[in-house]
């Protein structure tokens, strides 16, 4: 299996490069690889969406980028480079620079992502002090400034609040402030709005989009919500069973999918234009990571699949700087162009 990264010339300048990443769980008998051949690129000033059903390895890939793999999960191969740091082989000093200073991370559950016994301001200030030689007062001023930028109306007073005194949306803003405190170049967001209600989701997304232009940072946004992805992402990576299936500019991927799985995801989303008859659940179930097939992981559920799909999978570059792992993408393209999605 090979993974082609697009030859756009941006190579080498990329802030984040993930290539053919493999992550393993456990050793010996019960060992398996929940991520096999994941790929991702991100640069300053862009929002890259990672979409896919739950269990497809999105969270593990993000944690692998930040050097925060959970105990029992390890790197089995491939490349992860962020801001020049070779993450799988990073020494403790590099890991320290990586976490907070190069990469900031936002989590799915704002209710549990904060330390319940520490004031929110202190949690931000300690993140700022971890990387800069700041005095207590300076760190506090920085935390208050960040709270203000996150939309807290009285940051100097709210600095002293504890997490349980805030709503989910406000807590998520604190998590974002923590992630930004070390002035990272890359923000990794793991389903940051899944736990929030619709209006709060919009505000938090707008906040993140604002940061991209204000601070010129890169954002990787994991989501299973295609609506969210369509709204703020510049590029989209579609993941399935620990693998990258399709990648390209957001509007292209979402309007003209070049992988049947993307098409299936789109058909499963209710929109104003779709009618109930058109809305279709994806048949079958996602593969369990314990059972790896040699071919395309989606083939057993795919209406376009032919025998060869079950034997081998290759990622190829197509038009508009896009890539797809579907050998039948041309057939799919004709159908999509003909009928619309």
């Amino acid at each position, binding site marked *: 299996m090979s993974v082609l990264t697009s030859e756009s010339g941006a190579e080498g300048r990329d802030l984040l490069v993930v290539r053919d990443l493999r992550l393993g769980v456990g050793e010996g008998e019960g060992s398996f690889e929940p991520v096999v051949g994941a790929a991702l690129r991100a640069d300053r000033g862009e929002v890259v969406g990672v979409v896919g059903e739950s269990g497809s390895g999105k969270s593990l890939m993000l944690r692998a980028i930040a050097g925060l793999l959970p105990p029992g999960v390890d790197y089995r191969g491939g490349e992860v480079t962020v801001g020049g740091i070779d993450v799988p082989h990073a020494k403790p000093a590099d890991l320290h620079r990586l*976490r907070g*200073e190069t990469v900031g991370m936002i*989590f799915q559950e704002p209710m549990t992502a904060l330390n319940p016994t520490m004031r929110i301001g202190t949690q931000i200030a300690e993140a700022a002090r*971890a990387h800069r030689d700041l005095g207590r007062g300076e760190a506090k001023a920085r935390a208050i400034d960040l709270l203000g930028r996150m939309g807290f109306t009285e940051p100097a007073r709210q600095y002293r609040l504890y997490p349980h005194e805030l709503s989910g949306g406000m807590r998520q803003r604190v998590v974002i402030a923590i992630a930004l405190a070390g002035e990272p170049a890359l923000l990794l967001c793991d389903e940051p709005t899944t736990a929030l209600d619709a209006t709060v989701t919009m505000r938090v997304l707008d906040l993140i989009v604002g940061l991209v232009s204000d601070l010129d940072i890169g954002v990787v946004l994991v989501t299973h919500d295609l609506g969210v992805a369509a709204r703020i992402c510049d590029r989209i990576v579609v993941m399935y069973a620990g693998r990258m299936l399709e990648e390209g500019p957001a509007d292209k991927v979402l309007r003209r999918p070049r992988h049947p799985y993307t098409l299936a995801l789109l058909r499963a989303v209710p929109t104003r234009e779709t009618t109930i008859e058109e809305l279709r659940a994806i048949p079958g179930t996602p593969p369990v990571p314990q059972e790896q097939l040699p071919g395309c992981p989606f083939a057993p559920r795919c209406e376009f699949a032919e025998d060869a799909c079950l034997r081998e999978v290759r990622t190829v570059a197509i038009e508009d700087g896009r890539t797809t792992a579907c050998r039948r993408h041309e057939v799919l393209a004709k159908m999509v162009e003909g009928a619309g999605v």
Partner: protein
Amino acid sequence: MAYAGFLIRRLLQAIPVIFGVTFIVFWLIHLVPGDPARTALGLHATPAAIAKLHQEWGLDSSLPAQYLNYLGRLVTGNLGTSLRYQESAGTLILERLPVTLWLIVYSTVLVAIFAVPLALLAASRPGALRDRLVSIISVAGLGIPGFWLGLILIQYFAIEARVLPAAGFGSGFTGHLESMFLPSLTIAIGIIPMVVRSLRAEVLRTADLDFVVTARSKGLSERRIRWRHVLRNALPPSVTILMVNVGFLIGSTIVVELVFSLGGIGSLMINAINGRDFPLVQAVTLFFAFMVIFTNILGDLLQALLDPRLEAR
């Protein structure tokens, strides 16, 4: 302060408990069959002495009247008069209070000093040699009877190595610190295992929580993560365990005071029981009960101080 309100609420909640305790303590003397005055004074007491005690204790009035009378005395701070010492029980207790307080506070401090590092050590690598060693030491500590441990400690540290005194309260702060070390350690060793076990489990549970990943994602040092984030959040439940045990510990002071010849409230209790000094037994029992209630309230207060989420309750 929010804590003042919290404290007042806890004190109010303690009132029914306090009533219950006074009722039981009042009943103590009536639990023994026969005439309480005769029981107290013994077989050879003169009828005149018995009549005098009847009058003093108001034994001729009805039980409810006697209880109200007893409560009335307590409210004015009168804990009764010791038959044996012919002195106010309250004064006797106050005289011996420093020894017992030293024992309780000192052993609590020792528990904290030993339990926190042991629990962190054990939790740093669950299942590894260090973890198993800590749990073996803990089981041993739980199994050793306090009086025997006390005697062993006296044998090694006081008689053979001669580094610490074998008995007595010592004088001055450093004197107390030296003299009370072995007795306090004896008590502490009985409690450390329970606190270590709870704290180890709590540290392991906390280390898996999401906010620890957040802390790590900030690039903090492992040391800061361990102390400021993990331990800080693992502490509150273990503090409850500790304070419950301090309640039990008050009972074990009796044995330890005996072994180390300490003139504290525990030995006062033993003298009172041996001498059938009912008013003194009543007074000391009441005192111990109050100490337990007090440590429980203190535990709740500590809990509230450690966990801001409880403040609002």
